[in-house]
């Protein structure tokens, strides 16, 4: 099996309380926040390693990120990936999901492989759009299934996947090659072992630029991105400290409105009594 795992270095979600908005420049301040592998991508890598264990093959890691995150990628080699490539170029900065998948697809083409499986985390902790996996599938011309919460059967020809839905999951047969994006319910990612660190020494870790990929700069980065970021609102420091006025009924309604707006209420309701 040729397996490609796409990973994204993100600011460690456990340190987000350090992130704030500069009131003057409106630029996000995130000094001292470490970059880590997007947590769900660890599940994707784990699934790839398990599939390699049972079916054989090669696990390659692909990432588009600034050069400073190269060491984050080394981690994937210590975890067991066979090879990792960082796609990094100033031209890629500001890419939205469509521009990103153009770069990722170019990376896979440069390898000259036809992957059987491409695995991604279901969404990134920072952007959380969940779009990169399915969009990559379109560019590669292969099948896709997103938010997979379990893999029941994997053969070189097909996968029986559990597709996470609102009130449960659907079992879906997916013909390979395909892109699957995984949720945390899929597995429990392994930790780095010292043996893994030693074995990572001989594994290829490379950086490819836009020129290496032969990519048209107008198709990537800000200029290649159909979407643009408008304004960003964030409390300048600390919490909003908004007291909701009115009678209890009104305050509760106002609270629910705000929580819905911020999308922090659970997508799936809890267990009913």
């Amino acid at each position, binding site marked *: 099996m040729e397996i490609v795992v796409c990973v994204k270095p993100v600011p460690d979600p456990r340190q987000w309380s350090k992130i704030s908005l500069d009131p003057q420049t409106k630029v996000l301040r995130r000094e001292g926040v470490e970059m880590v592998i997007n947590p769900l991508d660890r599940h994707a890598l784990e699934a790839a390693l398990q599939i390699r264990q049972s079916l054989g093959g090669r696990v390659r890691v692909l990432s588009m990120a600034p050069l400073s995150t190269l060491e984050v990628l080394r981690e994937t080699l210590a975890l067991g990936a066979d090879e990792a490539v960082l796609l990094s170029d100033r031209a890629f900065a500001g890419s939205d999901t469509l521009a990103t998948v153009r770069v990722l697809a170019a990376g896979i083409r440069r390898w000259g492989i036809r992957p059987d499986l491409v695995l991604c985390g279901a969404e990134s902790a920072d952007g959380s759009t969940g779009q990169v996996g399915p969009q990559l599938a379109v560019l590669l011309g292969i099948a896709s299934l997103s938010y997979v919460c379990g893999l029941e059967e994997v053969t070189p020809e097909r996968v029986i996947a559990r597709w996470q839905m609102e009130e449960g999951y659907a079992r879906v047969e997916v013909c390979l090659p395909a892109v699957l994006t995984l949720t945390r319910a899929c597995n429990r990612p392994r*930790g*780095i072992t010292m043996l893994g660190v*030693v074995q990572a020494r001989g594994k290829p870790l490379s950086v490819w630029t836009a020129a290496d990929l032969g990519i048209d700069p107008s198709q990537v980065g800000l200029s290649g991105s159909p979407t643009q970021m408008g304004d960003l609102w964030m409390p300048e420091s600390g919490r909003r400290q908004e007291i909701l006025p009115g009678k209890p009924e009104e305050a509760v309604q106002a609270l629910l409105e705000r929580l819905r707006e911020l999308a922090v209420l659970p997508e799936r309701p809890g267990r009913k009594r």
Partner: protein
Amino acid sequence: MEFGFTPEQELIRKAAREFAETVIAPRVAEMERTRQPPLDIFHAMAEQGFLGITIPPEYGGSGLGHLARLLVIEEIARISPAMGFMLQVFALGAAPLLDFGTPEQKARHLPALARGEYFATVSVTEATGGSDPFGITTTAEREGDHYILTGRKVFITGSSLCYLHTVTAVTGQDERGRKVITAFLVTQDMPGFKVGREEHKVGLWGTQLGEFALDHVAVPAENIVGKEGDGIKVVMKAISETGRPGIAATALGIIARALQEAVKFANERVVGGRPIGEYQAIQFKIADMSVLLDAARLLCYRGAWMKDQGMRCDVEMSKAKLFATEAAMTAARHCGEIFGGYGWLEEYVSQQLYRDAAILIPSAGTSEAMRIVTGRAALKG
């Protein structure tokens, strides 16, 4: 001169941190309550490869070396000084084999130690005191191709937990009437090995400390480590170059944790309308802790670097152990004092750090013993 870690070392630190935070942290409360060593954590540490860091790949380890080992112990000890301490002991137990073992001895034990099939330590101290290794009274009398060992070892971390002990015993007298001391590999399953009483320390709960007796234990002559008469050299090299830095790294974990907790508290706790971190009285304490951490790290890392280069480093390690363990006491005390009244409540970690730090001072040689080593070396010029 370079002060940065290699990407590989950074990765090792990260791996240890992740392990400590996910596997050990949820178990600390239980260790503090039961005071029992958590065997499953030791095995998980073995699985992660932490027990084989100083063991070369040909014997089943990773051979990542002593600096890597210190990074791991520091990160583990930051979450649980007791677990850092046990990790240090297990590497100490492998040291005599690594330094002086025959190929047969290495092949027999090192792979098993790296895998965590069983644990090892160095057992020297007797009732006569740990700072006087020549004062021991355990004897080993030759009988054919065996030695018969008789005596009692005390203050042994892992006395009942460790299967493999490098034990010192008197095998005779030299021409000037001095004791000839030899190191033997003794295993718990040898007839006559009797686990004795357990000691109850005020800290490092989750470690195990106690005694064992050797009652006419027949040890094959091939179990001698080094040559007959090399005993002190064998165990002192292990203790001074592997044991002491291990204790020092445990201290680093305590200092780092004390600083981290103190900073968190000082930024959050409001007195007189301001976070207490804005008061200089608190800032100075935090500054001192921060300097102690840097200084202790630099001493420790230098010693480990020398060890990895194959240089003799007993004096440097003594300095590191002396400074780091004393600094851990100071940092834990500062942390507790910054916490104010909360500092010495059972539910706050400062009191635990303080108790744990105190035990590091006499372990593998007291501060006075470290000063003697350092002073003598300095006086030699």
